[in-house]
């Protein structure tokens, strides 16, 4: 085989060939192969809407937070007019990262290499991120350097959804609302206060960041709707009882009369790739706490929320865990937290976790939640520790030449999907074991990775062929 043959065969890799949704089989190559990873970085991450950070991390003019969008470092900034921007964190002259700080406050990013400086002060430049100062401007460039053309690369599309800052590099991408679709109900529960007050949440200071030797999709898939792993993976933490009810009670704080974590908890799978491990009809009241005053506080919040949402005709369910395509996962209940799986390589991921709290939460509620979040989630969290063991060693044991020949099995609930009242969505037929969400996620994933254009991506998502299949199946059964 010649180099040309190799290159030609490399060009012929199609993600859709590695995904067999009909039979519920997915090739291991998509979790370990470097070429697939490169296709993801080129075709998926620069085109999808990605979660960058929370607006409460940059409350004041000049505040910035350093983040990543796929393979690119970015700065989330707030200008003197209060608007949030996302800028590529790389000098236009020689590419140096203009800021290596995780967060801070400045009205100007000055590159250490040659001191090109970029202002986010609207009184000095037209648009935040524009080039402001260039050493030897007159003598080296005869004053001819077009500063307006050489500002920090600005992300063209930024959307603030109740404090969640999303961005995409693709000017052709649909609006955020269209990208999220009906999945927004889960984002609402994430961002609205526990008493239903819209958008009245913020993040605790301190984003957990850690490296794992796993493909990023293991992380997205885990929160997308994989409740099947809980009983085995999290047996040890469940035996301890770290939740609101104290020792011997469930870690998520379900009340005993709720029938546990699973009853009625059919999953919701969106043709757009998003997925949630529950549904909007599944109303899970706030927990009963070991401390009566906390139960009282949350009971009052639940009552206020239920009254408000019912009056507005809004559903009470939808707390996740859930994943918004491609790599933002979250839980909107207990705990309430956002995760992003940043791709580093095919077999390495940097995981970030933010923790959400009501702006109006009294000190004792805030402190209880903070401690609960830390003992639950993140690398020190008694739940999440065991997830990383799985993701890392699943990745490792899938890299072998022989292992790669054998696909993973995604056949749970195959051909047994259920209709949903939500357009563009179906449900699993089983509360715990259902892989319909993952099948839809990887189908959407392959459409992006194969670089289908936006008209085609939009067309494919506009008709959920799974709905027709369910109707056909039900007619045949009748």
């Amino acid at each position: 085989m010649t180099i040309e043959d190799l290159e030609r065969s490399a060009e012929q890799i199609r993600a859709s060939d590695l995904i067999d949704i009909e039979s519920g089989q997915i090739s291991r190559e998509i979790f370990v192969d470097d070429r697939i990873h490169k296709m993801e970085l080129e075709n998926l991450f620069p085109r999808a809407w990605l979660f960058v950070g929370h607006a409460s991390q940059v409350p004041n003019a000049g505040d910035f937070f350093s983040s990543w969008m796929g393979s690119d470092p970015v700065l989330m900034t707030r200008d003197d007019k209060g608007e949030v921007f996302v800028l590529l964190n790389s000098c236009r002259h020689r590419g140096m990262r203009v800021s290596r700080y995780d967060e801070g406050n400045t009205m100007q990013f000055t590159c250490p290499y040659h001191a090109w400086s970029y202002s986010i002060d609207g009184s000095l430049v037209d648009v935040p991120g524009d080039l402001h100062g260039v050493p030897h401007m007159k003598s080296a460039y005869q004053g001819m350097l077009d500063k307006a053309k050489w500002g920090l690369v600005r992300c063209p599309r930024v959307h603030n959804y109740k404090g969640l800052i999303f961005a995409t590099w693709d000017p052709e991408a649909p609006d955020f609302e269209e990208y999220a679709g009906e999945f927004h109900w889960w984002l609402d529960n994430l961002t609205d206060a526990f008493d239903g007050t819209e958008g009245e949440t913020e993040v605790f200071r301190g984003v957990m960041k850690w490296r794992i030797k796993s493909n990023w999709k293991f992380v997205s898939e885990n929160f997308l709707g994989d409740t099947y792993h809980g009983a085995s993976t999290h047996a040890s933490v469940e035996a301890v009882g770290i939740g609101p009810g104290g020792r011997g009670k469930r870690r998520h704080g379900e009340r005993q009369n709720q029938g546990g974590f699973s009853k009625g908890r059919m999953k919701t799978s969106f043709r757009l790739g998003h997925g949630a491990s529950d549904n909007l009809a599944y109303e899970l009241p706030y927990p009963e706490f070991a401390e009566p005053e906390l139960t009282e506080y949350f009971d009052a919040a639940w009552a206020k929320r239920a009254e408000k949402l019912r009056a507005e005709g809004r559903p009470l369910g939808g707390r996740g865990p859930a994943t918004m395509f491609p790599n933002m996962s979250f839980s909107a209940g207990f705990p309430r937290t956002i995760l992003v799986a940043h791709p580093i390589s095919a077999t390495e991921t940097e995981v970030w976790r933010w923790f959400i709290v009501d702006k109006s939460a009294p000190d004792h509620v805030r402190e209880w939640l903070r401690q609960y979040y830390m003992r639950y989630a993140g690398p020190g969290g008694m739940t999440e520790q065991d997830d990383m063991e799985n993701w890392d060693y699943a990745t490792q044991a899938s890299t072998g030449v022989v292992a790669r020949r054998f696909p993973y099995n995604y056949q749970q609930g195959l051909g047994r999907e259920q209709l949903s009242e939500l357009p563009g969505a179906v449900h699993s037929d089983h509360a715990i074991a259902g892989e319909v969400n993952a099948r839809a996620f990887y189908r959407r994933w392959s459409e992006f990775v194969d670089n289908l254009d936006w008209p085609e991506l939009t067309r494919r998502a506009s008709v959920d062929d799974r709905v027709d299949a369910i109707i056909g199946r039900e007619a045949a059964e009748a």
Partner: protein
Amino acid sequence: MTATQEGTTEMTSPTPMERMALHYEISDFLFREADLLDERRYTEWLDLLADDYQYSVPMRMNVKYDDVARLEQTREGAEVCWFDEPKDTVEMRVTQLETGVHWAEEPVSRVSHLVTNIRLDEISLPEVEVSCRFLVYRNRVADETDFLVGRRRDRLRRVGDDWQVCRRTLLLDQSVLLAKNLSIFV
């Protein structure tokens, strides 16, 4: 006779010999405690923690020079830390480690706690404020190896003939944690 054996009186100006004796005794205590952890003798180890024990590992951030004192680490008691918890939560972790189905530590990791640079910062018996450096080495399965290194402050309390740890704060020298998890006590 050393001042420590005199019990509750404040050692306002210990003699060099008294200080050396106390330093030796406390060092030996910390080494013994590390041995108990590394040998996974958790029940005995928990006995060395006071009931009001507080375990904190703030997160570290890259911030500007001028902001280091104020913002370089997350605040215990208010912001997100790797750990910031009372003894009760530490006991939960021990319970989890002893289930035999805690997959992050099954098979168990090989762990060595190295404690060094020990200094007695403040002696006000029955309590002593100790600063030291830690190097926690973990190896598990085959090639999975973590080095957790940083500064540590312990507040020890004289209880009978022995000591107990009542406050432990560790500053890990990493901003992005390079270990996949913290399923061991740092």
